[in-house]
């Protein structure tokens, strides 16, 4: 295979011999924050986040730290839900379903048979209504958030940034990241949007608005 590698690199060097060796100057005049929203105005950022998630067909429940458990219990049907390590147990206090730990690792069939999965997230982006999971505490491995048909994600208000350029620096590219913008969907048939194909067909977000909202 060394032959192919060396030959491709040599072809590239020949093909680009006319170009200067210096780096191309990259302008970066684009916005760092969501258009039309003051990133310091936390209420506006959270409103935008909830609105954009809603446009994708995700269910959004705005709550506060004291009311996470009852809100979760009303938003998550009683059934079998995968609960990753690190997901705060007190948030499940009012829920009457069965929690499935992914330890030892559940098989694909067991994950597929679960009704739901509950997670936290690593970051969230208001402008595009995006949740980012990095497989950290409370988020589980990637397969666990994929096979169950309902994904409920708890987002702390302080995790929500206004736009993509703010989020990218918060994330570690060496971790496996899943960026989720609404439930799975397709428009492959006559460009008609159908919600729910292979990934979770329902996405529910609990947005926990706390101290950083009260001072907004």
């Amino acid at each position, binding site marked *: 295979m060394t032959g192919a590698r060396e030959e491709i690199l040599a072809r*590239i060097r020949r093909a680009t011999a006319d170009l200067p060796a210096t780096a191309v100057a990259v302008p*970066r*005049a684009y916005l760092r924050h969501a258009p039309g929203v003051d990133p310091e105005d936390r209420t506006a950022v959270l409103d935008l986040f909830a609105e954009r998630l809603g446009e994708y067909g995700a269910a959004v429940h705005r709550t506060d730290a004291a009311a996470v458990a009852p809100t979760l219990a009303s938003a998550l049907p009683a059934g079998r839900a995968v609960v990753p390590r690190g997901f705060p147990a007190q948030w499940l206090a009012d829920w009457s379903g069965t929690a499935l730990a992914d330890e030892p690792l559940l098989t694909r069939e067991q994950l597929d048979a679960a009704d739901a999965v509950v997670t936290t997230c690593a970051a969230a982006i208001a402008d*595009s209504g995006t949740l980012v999971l990095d497989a950290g505490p409370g988020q589980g491995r990637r397969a666990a958030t994929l096979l169950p048909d309902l994904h409920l994600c708890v987002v702390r208000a302080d995790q929500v940034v206004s736009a993509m350029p703010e989020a990218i620096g918060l994330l570690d590219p060496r971790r496996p990241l899943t*960026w989720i913008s609404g439930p799975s969907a397709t428009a492959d048939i006559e460009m008609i949007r159908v919600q729910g*194909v292979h990934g979770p067909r329902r996405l529910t977000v609990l947005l926990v608005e706390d101290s950083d909202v009260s001072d907004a």
Partner: protein
Amino acid sequence: MSRTFVGWPAFPEAAAAATHDERLRANVTRATHTIRGKRARLVAERPDWEDLRDSAAALKDDVLAHLDSYLLQVEEQVTAAGGTVHWARDAAEANALVTALVQATGEQEIVKVKSMLTEEIGLDNALEAAGISARETDLAAAIVQLGDDLPSHVVVPALHRNRAEIREIFVREMGRHGRPAPDGLTDDPPQLAEAARLHLREKFLKARVAVSGANFLVAETGTVVVVESEGNGRMCLTLADTLISVVGIEKVVPTWRDLEVFLQLLARNATGERMSPYTTTFSGVTPGDGPQTFHLVLVDNGRTRALADEVGRQALRCIRCGACMNICPVYERTGGHAYGSVYPGPIGAILNPLLKGPDDPQTASLPYASSLCGACNEVCPVRIRFTDVLLELRHQVAEGDAAVKHPAEKAALRAIGAVMEHPAAWNAAVRAAGTAGPLVPKNRLPGPLGGWTDSRSVPEIPKESFRSWWKRTDGGTR
């Protein structure tokens, strides 16, 4: 063996057939107009859209100018993260590599995420020849595969099919490749999507090997980025034990931060969404999460040929959003198959001749599959100047091997070449044209020149040539 574009007729012939297919035209028109409208609304909400385009074009130009060092960085980072990097000069080498990697696992059926590169190199057929069934899992790609059809769009490969056709394909074919379509399946899109979910779910749960492409490859971190909507990508990228990503060498972006540019452009421009439902990014292997064996196959297959073209190399900035075909008046009327390639529309009209060289009549016909209206220039997220490249490629075709030229152009060039070399003959010919003017048919020129008048009227031929007018009036002074 599935259908391929090998031996496809040149564009004028294929387009003539396509434009007479009323169902096809209706399907393509409906789809392209829908996406155009969605895209326009989403682009309009970004006051910095032009700034994002400037950044994206410059980033890609930087990658192309230093592609050797960026690829070495990719190799170093992916290897450090536990992956294995392979290099393939052409389609045959890439297919042989992937086939050997799959054979090493002993698996007979694998799952695939939609990848235009693997369509370009004909990977599914190569695997089939080795006794390996590669099942497409993107809904549109699955429609194309089940229907033994060819892709007609880079984002929505089954854009040329309507719901009734899709239902018929599912009912007829799903049972031959796994779980049959549900009884009583109608052509309601949610029902069709549900049928695909059920058919493919058993394949996802069984699959041990997956093949993907990539939207972006981050040099700084060795990160592979896959953007998708349905979750079929996540299934393949996450559930398989062995993942093989087959990626064109031009897919590199320099740094992790640069994704903030491309991820804001891609979905808006491709499908009229702020973000596609799912984006997966991963670097090599993560213990305990996802595939534990990862192969990255870097493919040239003509890209270095395109890179050597000073005007044409900008085509390698392309991020395959499909906006150029959605806006193109030619694509709207012919659909994608007329271009005889997995890359149709304006990008196909420039990329195919650049990758392959305009040495056969089919490829040589593509730079002419354009009215040069320039709408593609305006929607391109990486500012490819399609019209500049089209003109340059027409020039190359005209200057190049006479065998691939349009017959009329060839005859005309031969005749005019002889006449122009002799001023006396030129003057005589021009005088004769003025005299013959009233005799020239107004609607259709005879013989091989008829191609010109199929879509145009013959201009009025002046009775007197410019040179003779100049001589008679002494430059207009008499």
